[in-house]
């Protein structure tokens, strides 16, 4: 890996300034995906001096530092108590322990990987991102815009809730990227997200709207919800599966997921 300079910055200002200076300047997360993403970096910016690896419990939300490792988050008991442990469940499916010890939540979120297992789980929780420059942004807005990519992510805030939840990752082997993944939470409203379409994660808002209108969830309603979900999603083909098979998977697991969170 060709890195010209490495700086462990002393302040968020310094990090932000360096980042904006050149396209070839990057912030280092854990470095788990370093070998895949870039060959050359001018200035590698490390936030290691800024105490971003903690998980703090506040009154209404959990605040996770951007440099907290995926493994630390996975086994954290406060994280496990959120929404039936859906975030831990999603993280535990990612590759192996060694990667999860190295990879950070900040790197995973900023990477906006379409194969991400974390993003669907976060999408169905109430999540805000705290940036240095842009201050507070909700996850959905962050994902739909490029405005935040040249900013320094400091914290991820997750509202404290414990609702019914469902998470499914379908893959060829436990170490493979997902063919499709799906996250559902249900308090008084349904939240449903699918990822690895193969494209980026999306919230199934029409499907959610349809289900949230219903008085009773019957088998017929579930089937209709699946129809709507297939229509509104962006399912497609890639090396791992065809669009047709993804539709079969969405149909099957959405049905099973809705049943699980309403049983």
């Amino acid at each position, binding site marked *: *890996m060709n*890195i010209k300079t490495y700086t462990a910055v002393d302040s968020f200002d310094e990090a932000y300034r360096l980042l904006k200076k050149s396209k070839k300047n990057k912030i280092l997360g854990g*470095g*788990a995906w370093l*070998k895949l993403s870039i060959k050359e970096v001018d200035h590698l910016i490390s936030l290691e001096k800024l105490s971003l690896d903690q998980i703090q419990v506040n009154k209404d939300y959990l605040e996770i530092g951007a440099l907290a490792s995926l493994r630390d988050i996975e086994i954290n008991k406060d994280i496990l108590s959120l929404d039936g442990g859906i975030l831990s469940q999603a993280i535990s499916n990612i590759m*192996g*322990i*060694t990667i999860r*010890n*190295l990879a950070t939540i900040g790197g995973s979120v900023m990477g906006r990987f379409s194969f991400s297992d974390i993003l669907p789980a976060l999408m169905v929780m109430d999540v805000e991102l705290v940036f240095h420059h842009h201050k507070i942004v909700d996850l959905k807005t962050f994902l739909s815009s490029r405005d935040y990519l040249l900013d320094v992510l400091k914290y991820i805030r997750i509202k404290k809730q414990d609702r019914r939840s469902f998470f499914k990752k379908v893959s060829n082997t436990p170490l493979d990227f997902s063919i499709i993944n799906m996250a559902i939470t249900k308090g008084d409203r349904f939240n449903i997200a699918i990822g690895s379409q193969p494209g980026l994660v999306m919230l199934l808002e029409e499907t959610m709207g349809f289900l949230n209108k219903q008085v009773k969830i019957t088998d017929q309603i579930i089937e209709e919800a699946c129809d709507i979900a297939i229509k509104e999603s962006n399912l497609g083909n890639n090396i791992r599966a065809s669009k047709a098979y993804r539709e079969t998977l969405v149909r099957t697991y959405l049905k099973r997921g809705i049943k699980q969170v309403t049983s």
Partner: protein
Amino acid sequence: MKIKLNINQQIKNFEIEPGDFLLDVLRDAGYMSLRRGCDNTSCGVCTVLLDNRPVPSCSLLALKAQNHQITTVEGIQEEADKLGRYFGDEGADQCGYCNPSMALCVYALKLENKDAKEEDIKKYLVGNLCRCTGYVAQHKAIKRYLGDAS
């Protein structure tokens, strides 16, 4: 740039480039137990312990390893010997290429959860690929090694 690394409780000096990964730096320095198996962090063979946590040395920048305790299998010889004997007893050793990194991971598992059951062992080690053994004998050996500890 000059850095100091704490490897197996010894502080050593290195002259590196910022983009050097720990695996290459350590192998060049003679730690031959660390080996490479793939191009992109997907096999587990290069695992090293950083503060007793397994990490992939092929993707860890050497300069990030400063101010941490690095452990290679040379630093846990007694544990590796114990595990190696159980492997021998169960016929779980074949080509051995994945073994030193397994010793480190299994040792880390022992520190984290010495009561780990078979499912826990499988989940903890899933990122450590083995192409030779079909895994079953390895799990038997690891259970016995962990059983010693509890």
